[in-house]
């Protein structure tokens, strides 16, 4: 092939431009420290990098959620510990009142006052806020837990506020706080949130063994019947009753609570009526779940509804009732002592004794809740550690994908530089002379 000067020049410039492109690539990698600058640099690695970036962003978000979760749970735990220590003090006070019959009325009065203060303290703790959110309010984070509707928490879904019971023929209400319902299941959501209901229990005939011979149970909203059931003959307290909705096919199951007592000297013609107020919990008893990892939800809260409005399995009264009762019993005792009512003294001691046993059951319940919260803190802390390791791994992986291998790039750069300089040198030598330079001048 004939080779012309122009070809040499073009070839030289073409090669020089190729080397320049290489050097420009080296320069880009060295000055950014990244091997991936455009998607076309390595499309597969770019899509992997983007996938890692997405996961990393999620991980960072999870880490922030975990931090909030931990701070929420630790604050809750601090408040619960404060409640526990207040409860222990109340226990001490009741013990002191029980064992100091000779003490003066003033002393008892002051015990009652101190206990009242401790109860106030407990209420304060129950209203602890994190930011503007109440820790123990369930999902009702903007309402103080102490102002939630009255009543005993029935299976998370409703509060049952005990009403006054009336009985005939030797039937009496077991206690002022006895509720019609001990547990309730409302799968068809007959109870609407924001609405208050009346549950009317009417045992028109009670057998001598205490079982109900005939009766009805009706759920009403503002005087309109929502659901009702006929109590089958022979139903004992604690039995389960199914209420049928008036409109539609919805049902609601409830278990009868320990409402009434039949006195030992029972007579015939026994009956018992009681009307309670049922309020849907509306989120007061709901868990707040934080997603701390993909598909891992951890409830971060304890609810005041659970703590104060649930009757412990080993006890007979929920914490709120117990506290109210204890304060009132202490005050009664002080009053009775002042009026030297020895009859009252004996009764007061029995009442306090029962308060003490209720308190112990309630305290154990709170301690159990705190322990359960502690185990949740532990598991979230474990997830936190794991998350931070995961994040490190992802970052390493991303660096491997994206970052330029400096040693390699620098080596490549010096090679390219050598080639470039050689090309320049060669160009300067080869492109200049032609035969014309050597022709005789004359």
């Amino acid at each position, binding site marked *: 092939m004939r080779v*012309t000067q*122009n*070809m040499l020049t073009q070839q030289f410039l073409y090669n020089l431009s190729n080397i320049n492109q290489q050097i420009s690539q080296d320069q880009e990698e060295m000055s950014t420290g990244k091997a991936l600058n455009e*998607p*076309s640099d390595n499309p597969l690695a770019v*899509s992997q990098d983007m996938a890692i970036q997405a996961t990393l962003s999620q991980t960072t978000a999870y880490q922030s959620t975990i931090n909030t979760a931990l701070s929420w749970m630790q604050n809750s735990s601090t408040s619960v510990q404060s409640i526990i220590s207040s409860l222990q003090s109340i226990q001490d006070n009741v013990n002191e009142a029980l064992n100091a019959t000779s003490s003066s009325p003033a002393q008892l009065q002051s015990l009652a006052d101190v206990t009242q203060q401790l109860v106030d303290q407990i209420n304060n703790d129950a209203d602890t806020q994190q930011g503007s959110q109440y820790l123990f309010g369930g999902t009702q984070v903007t309402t103080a837990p102490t102002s939630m509707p009255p009543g005993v928490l029935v299976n998370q879904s409703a509060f049952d506020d005990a009403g006054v019971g009336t009985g005939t023929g030797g039937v009496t209400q077991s206690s002022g706080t006895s509720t019609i319902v001990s547990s309730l299941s409302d799968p068809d959501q007959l109870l609407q949130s924001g609405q208050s209901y009346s549950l009317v229990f009417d045992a028109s005939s009670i057998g001598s063994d205490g079982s109900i011979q005939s009766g009805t149970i009706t759920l009403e909203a503002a005087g309109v019947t929502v659901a009702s059931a006929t109590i089958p003959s022979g139903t004992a307290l604690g039995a389960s009753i199914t209420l049928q909705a008036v409109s539609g096919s919805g049902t609601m199951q409830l278990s009868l609570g320990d409402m009434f007592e039949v006195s030992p000297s029972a007579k015939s013609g026994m009956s018992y009526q009681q009307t309670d107020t049922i309020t849907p919990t509306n989120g007061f008893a709901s868990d707040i779940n*934080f997603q701390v990892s993909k598909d891992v939800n951890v409830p971060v809260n304890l609810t005041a509804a659970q703590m104060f409005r649930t009757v412990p399995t080993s006890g007979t009264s929920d914490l709120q009732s117990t506290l109210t009762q204890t304060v009132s019993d202490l005050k009664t005792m002080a009053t009775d002592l002042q009026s030297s009512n020895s009859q009252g003294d004996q009764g007061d001691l029995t009442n306090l004794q029962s308060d003490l046993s209720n308190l112990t059951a309630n305290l154990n319940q709170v301690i159990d809740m705190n322990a359960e919260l502690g185990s949740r803190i532990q598991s979230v802390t474990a997830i936190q550690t794991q998350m931070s390791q995961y994040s490190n791994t992802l970052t390493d992986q991303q660096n491997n994908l*994206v970052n330029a291998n400096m040693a390699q790039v620098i080596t490549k750069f010096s090679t390219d530089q050598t080639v470039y300089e050689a090309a320049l040198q060669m160009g300067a030598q080869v492109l200049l002379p032609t035969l014309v330079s050597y022709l005789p001048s004359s």
Partner: protein
Amino acid sequence: MGTSTFLTLNIGVSAIEAMTQAESVVGNNIANANNTSYAQETAVLGEGLPYEITPGTSISQGVDVTSVNRDTDSFLIQQDRANQGAYQMYSTHSSGLSEIESILNEPSSNGLQNSLDQFFSAWQTLTSSSSDPAARQTVISQAQTLAQTFEGATTQLEQLQANLNNVVYGSSSYTPGTGELTDVSGTTSSTGTGNAIASDVEVLNSPQSSTDNLHILFTASPNSSGTTSYTVQLEDSEDPPQAIGPAVPVTGAGTYQLGSSSGVLVSAQIADPSTLLPSSYTTGDTYTQTDAVTPPGGELQELNGYAYQVEQLNQQIKTEQSLNQSVDPLLDQRDQILDSMANLANISYTTQSDGSVSVQVGNASLVSSSGVVTPLSEADVASQVTSGTMKGNLDSSSDTGTVLGQLNSFLQQFAQSVNAIQQQGYGTNNPSSKAPPLFSVSTDADGNTVLSLADEPGTSTPVDAGDVAASGEPNQPGDNSNAQAMVALQTDASAYQNGTFDQGIAQVVSSVGVEASAVSSSEETANALAQQSSSMRDSVSGVDTNQQAALLVQYQNSYDAAAKLISVYDTMLQSLISMVPS
């Protein structure tokens, strides 16, 4: 038979003349050594006519430059043009794709994906502080950022696409001018902006690919038979305007060619002249109106302009050839134009026996063998152009369209999924009823999808922090189940085209990356091939300075020798003459 005494002298003179001519060819080669469109020329020396000395014996009468050859190889040129066209296509396409890449701005920490991640992170934060107004506001802000980031990319891509289409097709504009009515008495009045004289103005021929404004002058004037006759005239945009070509009489609506074939020639669809007259016009009046036209410019017009130039050169070459004149400079010029055309599109051409070339783009004839120029239409561009910068720009434009389409379907699915979850939940503005949608989907002027914050139902104010549906239960501000459902959307593996939304974006980016990387390596290959074929072409047609220097010396030596011959023969003649007694 004897020989002429001066035959030898004449032979010497013929050698001196031939060498002078050959040196001129060498000189011309050296002078054009760096002219890229120049093909090296070679002086072909031939023996002079034979002269019979004795029967059966003859000697030549010296030497002649019988022809000057242009050193070209039509096969190599054709191959080189094809290769240059392919290289231009890949190179243009590659730079188009790298613009798309830079608009998508991935991988980076402030691109599309980041705005998506930040949006979901805001929801994740909301799950841990569902009633915190700041966390809610963050969701709204991130939703807005996301909408704006995507809109920014969409707008830039649309701009890019418009630019690319503009480069190929150009954009013309047409402005109707004001009319002037001169009545029978000679009073002139303006009649305001008239109707457009012409539509569909296409520049058929332009000396340069210029985008200078052109004017179309419409005149309605009374004629001798008492009716009105109409003419249209093409003018340039000088002040005062200079007419280009003759005024063309118009008899009715139709397509007319205006201008001159040696200057600017346009074809225009002229409206029915009677519709152009103002209502106040009565027979006998004279009405004139001048409209302004901006030719589209663009590669299409450039290519069509070249076609006209090729045709003009064809005519000149035919004429010169028939007159036996040298056509080499014209051939060089035409080759240069064909090179430029090959860089624009995939031209193929055939050289006719009369020296003219016919040019086709794909199956569309541009310059026919009978000398008819058919400008390439926009439809032809789409169907026939398969190479050159035009194809590169068209490919980039269609890739931009593809990315826009992918972003559109992504945004629609994204807005639909987010709104579906949002509307399942409850905000704090109206905690007892389901929340309004977060995004509203609309289309912009180019028909692409744009997201924005939806308006609160029944109002024109956009949704605010209180509308963010974190809660899955009515009247429970602390519930975060709906926010969790939203967070779960980020990792939902069937959210968009069998993947997550993040993967959807990564898919868009990496498909552009795959294509850019493929086109870039094709560009390298095409560049090497183009370099190779250009070398091959150069090795035939290029000027080798060494060779020319050698020829220079060689011809010089011949010249010297011929001069010596004359000198020697002169001495011989002197000897002969001196024998004659004085």
